[in-house]
């Protein structure tokens, strides 16, 4: 039982359909058979009633004349055609009982010899007596004894009010059997034919009903640690309950996916922010002693010391300290520097700057400057820095003769900067740490370019998205424009 309940709807619903179809077929067949059986019995009662009346009338004269042979011919006439086929309408026995309840004549005299007590050959007759005795008027009576396989039609033979004898016609209910079996066979065939249509149809419909459910169940199984790829989510499109369920599931997946993306974004931003804070803190702690050290060296130089070894050593130290200072200032991106609003010319200047590098790599530069003559309310220094960083990275990434694209245009309430290249793509594991400092995979550079870019974009309240696939890598920056200030 339990295992049946555990069965997949894929099988359970079709099986239910099949069981229903079978049950329907059986009930219809059974009721047909029952009706047919009752009809047969009714027909029998009607025809035997006619037969009995005709025989009873015809038998009067032979009985009055004691013409045994004539009477025998008459009661045998229903069998005279020589039809021995067991039809339910064919009497099994026709008997005339005399007034003393003895056999006057029977169609099968071997079983019921003349002048004998019929009850000895067939105990049914002992029970029939009361019915036979009760008959005083012409007419037929159908007598059915429980437990007896026979049906008797009893008719008094009456002439001028005198009871000459009794006509008993016996029918075997067994004779119904071949007919009923024949009907049952026919009905079974019809049932099979109906099932041949019903079963595949019910199987098909049930499968169609079950499949969306099983698909949904399978898709739900896919939701574990990771969300399934939208391409793998098969949902039945309809407005019925299953369709609603699928739509709700799809919406839920979408929500989950957005939440996941948001969480990733938050984690990402927080990590970068933490790194930024750490870097700023470290830079600050380093910059103070560093300034002191550089001042000391400067002072020492002014006092003049001719010792060449000391001078060389100090200048080595000074160079190292200056390099640390450079790195620190790069780490510590400061966006608070005032600068004029970004103009179209600023962008064109940047183009001139990177053109030399592009030429060196024989790369094609697709430049699209969507700014008009009106300046944009964004600090030009920062935007140019971002643009230069992204362009140089792009030119660096392409193969010689490759293609680099840049498009700058105000879009809605922000400035969109899209830098593309057709160089090698950035693998997924690098994408995760792309904007972190010193995360570069390259030999050259200090690996702070994208970190600085991110910091700048972030400080300007914008977003930067990197997308990379073979043959196309793009960085999309959106910088929100401040509210229009006239």
């Amino acid at each position: 039982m339990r295992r049946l309940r555990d069965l997949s709807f894929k099988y359970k619903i079709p099986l239910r359909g099949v069981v229903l179809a079978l049950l329907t077929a059986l009930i219809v067949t059974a009721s047909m058979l029952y009706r047919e059986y009752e009809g047969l019995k009714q027909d029998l009662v009607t025809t035997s009633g006619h037969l009995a009346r005709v025989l009873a009338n015809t038998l009067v004269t032979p009985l009055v004349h004691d013409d045994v042979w004539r009477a025998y011919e008459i009661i045998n006439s229903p069998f005279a055609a020589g039809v021995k086929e067991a039809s339910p309408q064919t009497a099994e026995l026709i008997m005339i009982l005399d007034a003393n309840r003895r056999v006057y004549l029977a169609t099968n005299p071997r079983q019921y010899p003349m002048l004998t007590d019929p009850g000895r050959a067939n105990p049914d007759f002992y029970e029939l007596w009361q019915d036979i005795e009760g008959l005083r008027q012409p007419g037929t009576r159908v007598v059915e004894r429980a437990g007896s396989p026979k049906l008797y039609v009893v008719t008094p033979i009456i002439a001028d009010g005198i009871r000459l004898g009794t006509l008993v016609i016996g029918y075997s209910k067994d004779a119904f059997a071949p007919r009923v079996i024949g009907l049952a066979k026919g009905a079974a065939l019809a049932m099979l034919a109906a099932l041949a249509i019903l079963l595949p149809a019910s199987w098909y419909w049930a499968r169609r009903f079950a499949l969306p459910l099983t698909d949904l169940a399978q898709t739900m199984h896919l939701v574990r640690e990771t969300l399934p790829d939208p391409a793998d989510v098969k949902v039945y499109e309809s407005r019925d309950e299953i369709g609603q369920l699928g739509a709700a599931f799809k919406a839920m997946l979408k929500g989950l996916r957005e939440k996941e993306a948001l969480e990733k974004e938050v984690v990402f931003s927080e990590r970068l922010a933490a790194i930024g804070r750490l870097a700023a803190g470290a830079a600050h702690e380093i910059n103070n002693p560093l300034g002191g050290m550089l001042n000391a060296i400067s002072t020492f130089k002014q006092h003049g010391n001719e010792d060449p070894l000391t001078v060389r050593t100090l200048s080595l130290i000074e160079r190292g300290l200056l390099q640390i200072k450079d790195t620190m200032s790069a780490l510590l991106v400061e966006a608070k520097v005032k600068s004029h609003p970004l103009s179209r010319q600023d962008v064109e200047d940047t183009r001139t700057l990177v053109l030399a590098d592009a030429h060196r790599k024989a790369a094609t530069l697709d430049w699209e400057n969507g700014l008009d003559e009106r300046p944009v309310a964004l600090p030009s220094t920062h935007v140019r820095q971002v643009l230069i960083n992204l362009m140089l990275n792009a030119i660096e990434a392409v193969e010689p003769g490759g293609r680099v694209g840049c498009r700058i245009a105000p879009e809605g309430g922000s400035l969109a900067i899209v830098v593309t290249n057709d160089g090698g793509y950035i693998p997924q594991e690098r994408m995760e740490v792309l904007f972190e400092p010193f995360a570069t995979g390259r030999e050259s550079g200090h690996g702070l370019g994208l970190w600085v870019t991110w910091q700048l974009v972030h400080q300007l309240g914008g977003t930067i998205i990197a997308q990379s696939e073979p043959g196309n890598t793009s960085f999309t920056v959106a910088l929100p424009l401040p509210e229009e200030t006239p």
Partner: protein
Amino acid sequence: MKRRELLLGGAAAAAFGALASEKPEKGAARIGLSPVFVDDQLAFLTNWRSYLEQALERPVQFVQRRSYREIMDLLLEQRLEFAWICGYPYVRNRAELQLVAVPVSEGRPTYHSYLLVPATDRGTNSILDLRGKVFAFSDPDSNSGFLYPNYELVSLAEPPDRFFGKTFFTWAHRNTVEAIAAGLAHGGAVDSYVWETLRRYRPETAAHTRVAARSPEFGHTPFVARRGVPSRDWLALQRALTGMRDSPSGRALLEKLNLDGFVPGADSLYEGIARMMAAVKGVALHAPTA
């Protein structure tokens, strides 16, 4: 054996009255057929009638009735000229009748009365074994089917009207065979010629019966003419019947009848029947209630 002289002439002055036979054909020879033979072969009867019409050079009309008595009555009422009847009514009405021809079966112009019982009855060898049983007679005017068994009981000092439990008439030897085959009667008396014919042509019925005893031989069922029929007419019929064995078509008909032929026959053939008739005279026999 005294051979009865043929009565010639129209002494009987056949000025017969109006004939009342149904559909009387003008100048037709009307022949009554009683069930002394297997008389339900209508196609055969048509052929036989054609044969006789050709031989007699006049139309022939067969008249069939259920009982011997009806045929005898028609004959005596002058509605028939000829009839094929049983030896018993012939002997009874000898004065009114002229013997025309006697059938020959198994080489002799005689037959027997068979005591017939169901084939399943192996014990009965005599009519005495059937005391209190149901017995089938063929016709109260039949020698083999009624007179002989009664005579036998009388000669055995048994009262014929009380010996059996129940008796009935079947009105034809063939029916008696069927009644016994079906088990309706425990025994019956039949014409040996009919039984042998049935055994030959309808063995399925005869096979269910067994001959338990056979009587001495009696004169075969005769073709007779009513006295008053011109001698040339009955002689013509006599020639036609006795001549059947001489032509192929006649022999084919005889084959169907299961007869060797017809002979003119002698009145003395029926002395046995006359003696039995005398012996049962005055004894209460079973009489038809009809």
